């Protein structure tokens, strides 16, 4: 017998519980693993602009764009566009060690279509909060390098 009075609601609650749990687990660690970003220093070419500053600038410019696409996709109920933006942001965040945001993007990507838009807004808000903290860390790192 189901633990939930209504099967659909039960699934929703279970999904929400799992999502929150996953996000909580992922974001309970540091928002960004700076060692990943600083690891690029080994690849710095001679007489070339600072690679880490370049990557920071790229990310700080790219995140708001992808976020805007995701918000717009949710408002238009465009699941394909939402998941594509989440996919892109997951890749770039993961490559720079921003694991909290990468984990949330993965959740959005994995969300099945019937649940997609109910949870995405909340997840997007969480991402924005993480980004605000990551941005400060990145700007401080950037400041120290120029």
């Amino acid at each position, binding site marked *: 017998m189901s633990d939930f009075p209504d099967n659909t609601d039960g699934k929703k609650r279970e999904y929400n519980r799992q999502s929150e749990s996953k996000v909580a687990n992922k974001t309970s660690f540091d928002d960004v693993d700076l060692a990943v970003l600083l690891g690029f220093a080994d*690849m710095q070419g001679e007489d070339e602009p600072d690679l880490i500053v370049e*990557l920071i600038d*790229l*990310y700080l410019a*790219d995140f708001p764009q992808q976020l805007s696409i995701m918000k717009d996709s949710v408002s238009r109920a465009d699941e394909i566009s939402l998941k594509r933006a989440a996919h892109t942001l*997951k890749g*770039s965040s993961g*490559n720079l060690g921003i694991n909290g945001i*990468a984990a949330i993007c993965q959740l959005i990507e994995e969300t099945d279509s019937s649940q997609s838009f109910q949870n995405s807004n909340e997840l997007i808000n969480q991402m924005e909060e993480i980004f605000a903290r990551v941005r400060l860390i990145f700007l401080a790192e950037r400041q120290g390098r120029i």
Partner: protein
Amino acid sequence: MKILIAEDDEISRRVLQVTLAAEGYEVVATENGAAAWAILEKDDSPNLAILDWMMPEMDGLEVCRRARQQPTPTPVYIILLTAKALKADVVQGLDAGANDYILKPFNRDELRARVRVGKTVVNLQQNLAAQVKELENALIQVKLLQGILPICSYCKDIRNDQNYWQQLDHYITEHSEAQFSHSICPTCYESVVKKQLEKRAEKKLSNDKLPPNSNLRSI
């Protein structure tokens, strides 16, 4: 070695680029599948390509399929970058013609290791292709020495492909790996050389009988 990257996300593309450039590879970066295919279609295209699966205009899977339809002795080694971790997706990627795949976000050590494997395969393919070419050329030379050769019944010269008469030894040297060391067989020695030597000895003997200042000595 030249490596092609096709990745629409600028940050991932840059990370791929610097990681591979730091390993000494020459990197060509593109933003979508169509641009990647335009490069792979050309002669002297990169031997190894890293293609993102999901890209605008043409996805990595389609680039794989097109690359595999090209007849070439040295097919491009393709690594598919994918966030699709399901076995069915991996099978689909490999079936489309990818040699390998890396899950996104990728680990840079894994990327370097997989590219090294690709480089080994590319080198093996190139060596094999060079050896096949060498064998084909040798076969052409062997074929040239087969069939009917027009030869002069008297001087034994050969009429070559350009319709010129050529000495037999020169012809064979040009059309094979054979080289000649010239000497005289016993039969020819007896019939030709020995007679010439005897004739020369006789001439010397008669010269010796003439006075030293005789003009007949030079005749």
